[in-house]
């Protein structure tokens, strides 16, 4: 890198990029592995109940468990299918904390 490049360069140093990427991926992987054992079963059973009333695509479901201090937030996000009902594209949010 010559001197001119150095002063013109607005790119982040690669070490900073590395740190930021790791912060994100480690946080996500830690949540996955610290999730309680019942999480997959809970997810499945809730979906079974929802599926009784609405037809849903299992790929359109996201479950997140977040921890904020002493509070755990379980977020379940289900994208409902396109028409016929008027409730198109709606999201059902569910949160529970303990």
């Amino acid at each position, binding site marked *: 890198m010559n001197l001119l490049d150095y002063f013109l360069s607005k790119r982040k140093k690669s*070490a900073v990029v*590395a740190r930021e990427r*790791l912060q994100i991926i480690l946080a996500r992987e830690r949540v996955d592995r610290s999730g309680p054992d019942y999480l997959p079963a809970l997810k499945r059973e809730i979906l079974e109940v929802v599926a009784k009333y609405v037809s849903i695509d299992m790929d359109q479901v996201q479950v997140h468990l977040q921890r904020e201090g002493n509070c755990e937030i379980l977020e379940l996000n289900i994208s409902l299918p396109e028409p016929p009902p008027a409730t198109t594209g709606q999201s059902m949010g569910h949160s529970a904390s303990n």
Partner: protein
Amino acid sequence: MATIIVVTSGKGGVGKTTTSASVSTGLAKRGFKTAVIDFDVGLRNLDLVMGCERRVVYDFVNVIQNEALLKQALIRDKHCDNLFILPASQTRDKEALNKEGVGRVLDELRDSFDYIVCDSPAGIEQGALMALYFADEAFIVTNPEVSSVRDSDRILGILQARSKRAETGGTPIKEHLLVTRYSPRRVEAGEMLSLKDVQDLLGIPLIGVIPESEVVLQASNSGVPVIHFDQSPSGQAYDDVVARFLGESRPMRFLEPERKNFLRRLFGT
């Protein structure tokens, strides 16, 4: 009653065997009776790094399967009288290691040794799981590099969930972060994760930093653990690690780039 130390990392090629060889040598040099075990069945290399490859007769798997006695398989180190090497088998597969067998060998060693150093293979399969299962303390060897940091975090999760201490609800394994192949010059140039970055990301106590150095390759070339190279920064850094492990307080060294003076820079020496 020996303390069992696992040297692990998840990722390969970061310096586990180099660290196992030097830490076990350092402990033995301070008078502790120490055994170092290679858990990398099928890809043994600790013998080569410690310069005893031609003296291997029996191995770890032979002892587990009762084909040899422990004392027949242990190789006495040529530099330290109270250091013994238990080589891995080169012909079996990793499934030859199981909890019962490994536990029995470790129990037998525990009575007569002060420290048992378990050199883990890379990965998170049977060999790596067996190396960490019985550990009391762990060295997490990490390079300042994205894949190594991620794999170290993964292995920390396994230590905390699948070790014997985790399964039986004992006090957790004591974790020590060892950053290897550190290049202060590249950190200063913004090309390498800094020590602080790695520490912040992994969140475990730091036991030492080994600077990137040609001497490490020279040491393995000649089959002499790098801690014996006591004039080199990497040798000295390993000596610091062992001292800190034993409770001495020593400041971190080799964290700043070496400043060549103007004349030396001019003549490129």
